[in-house]
């Protein structure tokens, strides 16, 4: 089975490890394996407020250089923040020679000589952006092909209305990310269609959920999430699918605060895209960590179960 270099990132490594598991399960069903890097550090998630911009590219660059040095040219992430950070780092290194030189100087400085001499006899080689950072969904669309997913479906999601939620950093800034049209994207819609479910159109799919303001200004985030969820619900969604652990957290966990603030609010289940994929490919519900969700996903699962036979063990 093909192995693709995989960077889980902090969130999926720890607090959202169930999402990591669903991704691994699903990809195996599709015939390839997510091969977690031997050693990796935090990518940094967001560019910090700092005068020293180059310094902050060092950590993600080291991750990328390690991938390249291990002889691989694709790195998959399934977290939008990791994707954004790694891809933009690559962009900076490729498009700006000064940044490239300075980053590599830091990397070289910071790496004990024996580390690379022991591993390999080849001399130091600057990292120049050789690795292609790719979102799992992008991999499914461009490398594997969405039709391959459709062919492999084991459960029917037919009739399920799923609202795609893009959030911010999966698409923006567009000139550096270039995954899809930031104003009118289709990648998640097409993913939903590939799962034989029905994508829901609604205007809030690219509006921010509040991101890290969930920590510093929770009320602001609550208001934003309320707008997104209500819009999706009003447009007929049974659930929302996301591709970022923070979006997942905000849209799911914030529903507690939303229900308190807005009495008329009806909760809406949230899925990580890997969960839906995994379920559709027949992996048992029990491996998805649905019990960690704040909003009960059972009504959606019931629909899936009733319209198809069983998965692996059900």
């Amino acid at each position, binding site marked *: 089975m093909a192995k693709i270099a995989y960077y889980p990132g902090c969130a999926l490594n720890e607090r959202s490890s169930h999402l990591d598991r669903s991704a691994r399960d699903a990809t195996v069903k599709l015939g390839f394996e997510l091969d977690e890097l031997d050693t990796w550090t935090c990518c940094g998630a*967001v560019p910090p*407020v700092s005068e020293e911009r180059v310094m902050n590219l060092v950590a993600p660059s080291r991750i990328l250089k390690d991938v390249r040095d291990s002889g691989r040219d694709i790195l998959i992430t399934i977290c939008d923040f990791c994707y954004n950070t790694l891809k933009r780092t690559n962009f900076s290194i490729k498009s700006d020679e000064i940044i490239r030189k300075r980053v590599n100087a830091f990397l070289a400085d910071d790496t004990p000589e024996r580390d690379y001499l022991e591993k390999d006899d080849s001399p130091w080689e600057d990292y120049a952006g050789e690795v292609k950072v790719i979102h799992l969904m992008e991999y499914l669309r461009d490398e594997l092909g969405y039709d391959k997913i459709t062919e492999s479906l084991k459960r029917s999601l037919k009739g399920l209305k799923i609202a795609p939620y893009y959030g911010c950093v999966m698409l923006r800034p567009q000139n550096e990310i270039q995954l899809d049209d930031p104003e009118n994207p289709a990648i998640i819609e097409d993913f939903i269609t590939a799962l034989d479910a029905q994508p829901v159109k609604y205007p809030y799919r690219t509006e921010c959920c509040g991101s890290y303001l969930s920590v510093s200004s929770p009320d602001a985030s609550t208001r934003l999430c309320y707008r997104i969820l209500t819009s999706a619900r009003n447009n007929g969604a049974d659930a929302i699918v996301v591709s970022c652990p923070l979006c997942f957290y905000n849209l799911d966990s914030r529903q507690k605060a939303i229900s308190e603030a807005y009495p008329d609010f009806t909760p809406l289940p949230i899925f990580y895209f890997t969960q839906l994929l995994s379920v559709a490919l027949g992996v048992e519900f029990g491996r998805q960590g649905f019990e960690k969700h704040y909003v009960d996903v059972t009504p959606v699962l019931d629909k899936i179960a009733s319209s198809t036979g069983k998965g692996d063990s059900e």
Partner: protein
Amino acid sequence: MSEKTGLAPSKSPPIRLTRETVNAGFKKRVDALSGQHTDACYQCGNCSSGCPLAQEMDILPNRILRLAQLGQSDDIINSCSIWICASCFQCTVRCPKGIDIQAVMDALRQIAMDEGIDHFGPDQISPELAASVPQPGLVGVYRKLAT
């Protein structure tokens, strides 16, 4: 021209523009930190129109840029807006003049922090939140809002 009269301060004192205020270090520092050209902004207001957090701000994003153009640093660093920006890049992708407004916001936060204005500290986060929020949320808030 600070007036120490013992009276309550004016609500909306006029800006007394001189070439010194306009060209003082502030705007240059914003541009240097952000890598952007603040003067390119022609005040169409698109950044504010589409900002998901505009309703939480005391000064809308376009006006933040405007104040920066006129060198009005005090108004900006005392504004809550720079701390409300969620770095969602909505304004950045839509700016007709190609200004990365998110980067300008980061620069303004930097300047505010240099002035000793910190928006967020570890003590402001509840233990349960700290234990549940995914790491990008925690890392984000510290990297964007605190020194």
